[in-house]
């Protein structure tokens, strides 16, 4: 959208949509609710279309990789093949993702792969813990103590070491830890409100910049 008109049009759309959706948080009005529902429906549809658009981006970037024989281009080939297979199988069967073929792939390829990649986190967490709990300052010392208590407080063996450790863990989780988390959540909420407002007021217009 070049030009003043384009920009103001775009901004107008953003603002009006936003207000129509936002107002429902404050007033209960069936008509407004209906309007909001419609808008949200549209947004969901658009999000789905955006994914279709995104597929082209994916195709493009991997095609480029393959074309230029960039390092590891065969993997891109595999990626596209896997993607294509799932899509074709799914579209062939009216049940889509629930179709036997797709659910089979889901159950025996996607789930185990994803679960295992995630299981790697166990090792990542371990080596991160090795680093993160260094006692460098009072802060990190506090972090260390809390970490150890919660770490051991969760498992039976912790009980064997110190009977009350579970209670200690629960107390930490329900009071100091909750307090810290709340501070972060509250602050982030304030920040989010202002970012949202800036967009709705047309102050920030990332899309027309």
């Amino acid at each position, binding site marked *: 959208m070049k030009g003043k008109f384009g920009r103001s049009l775009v901004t107008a759309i953003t603002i009006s949509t936003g207000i129509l959706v936002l107002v429902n*948080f404050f*007033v209960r009005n069936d008509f407004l609710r209906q309007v909001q529902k419609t808008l949200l429906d549209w947004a969901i549809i658009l*999000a789905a279309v955006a*994914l279709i658009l*995104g597929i082209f981006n994916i195709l493009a970037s991997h095609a480029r990789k393959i074309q230029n024989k960039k*390092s590891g281009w065969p993997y891109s080939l595999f990626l596209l093949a896997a993607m294509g297979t799932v899509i074709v199988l799914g579209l062939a069967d009216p049940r889509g993702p629930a179709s036997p073929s797709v659910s089979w792939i889901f159950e025996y390829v996607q789930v185990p792969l994803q679960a295992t990649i995630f299981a790697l*986190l166990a090792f990542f967490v371990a080596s991160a813990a090795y680093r993160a709990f260094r006692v460098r300052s009072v802060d990190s010392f506090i972090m260390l103590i809390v970490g150890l208590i919660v770490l051991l407080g969760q498992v039976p063996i912790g009980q064997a070491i110190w009977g009350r450790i579970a209670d200690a863990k629960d107390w930490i989780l329900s009071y100091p830890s909750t307090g810290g988390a709340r501070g972060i959540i509250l602050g*982030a909420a304030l*920040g989010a409100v202002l970012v949202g407002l800036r967009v709705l007021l047309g102050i920030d217009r990332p899309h027309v*910049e």
Partner: protein
Amino acid sequence: MDSLIDLLRNSGTSEQQALMLVLLLVTLPLLALFTMQQRAGKPVALRPIQAFHRVREFIGRGAETGRPIHVSLGTGGIADASTAESLAGVTFMGHIAGQSIASGAPLIVTVSDPTLLPLAQETALHAWESRQYGCDAAEPEVRLVAPEPVAYAAGVMDTLLGEHVAANVMVGKFGHEYLLMGETGIRTRTPQIAGGIDPQTLAFIQATADEVLIGEEIFASGAYLNPKPTHIASLRVQDWLRVLVTVVILVGVILRSV
């Protein structure tokens, strides 16, 4: 005032809703006022945030090594409640794009949510279009890795492992998949700046990133990197809302206790 209250009642607004509405309505004039003050040049001291300060160093590193800088915008979109985080990421990315283009450092931007993709492309494109005459930098590459968080993380791991990334910036919405990327960054010895608002992720951002943006700090990128009166003003509003919340809580506690 009474008529307003009646109006709210009739429209089925609960006290809490009314309260929030008031808070929202208080915010607007505050924002306007502070913006005016900022335009008038009111001096404001900002708490230093290293991440914003050091990002140039990272970009310079990209320029020196000729290796790409990777910016991850997280798994958030722009049509859901994670919009704020995503926008924060985009703002930050826009700045990095500008500088990396000018310094000739290649830039790779990865997103997970398809709705964020077009916005990221627009921002990168804008930086690219307004590049310095005759700059030989490559156009920033904006990629949709995968719409699914873990798949996205896997894709980013692949980028970090395979594309010799010079610096890794991750700002936006991140879930438990963050550690996959963060720790890979550590293992590939890639300098990292990371930020998010999810306490669950922050613990690991803290543990894996060289420079951290904790919680609302990510929303401040505009004010720190590309200060405009409105940006500073909204930070100040934020701080005063903070005070407001504190007062509410304290008063509440006192009333509750006695």
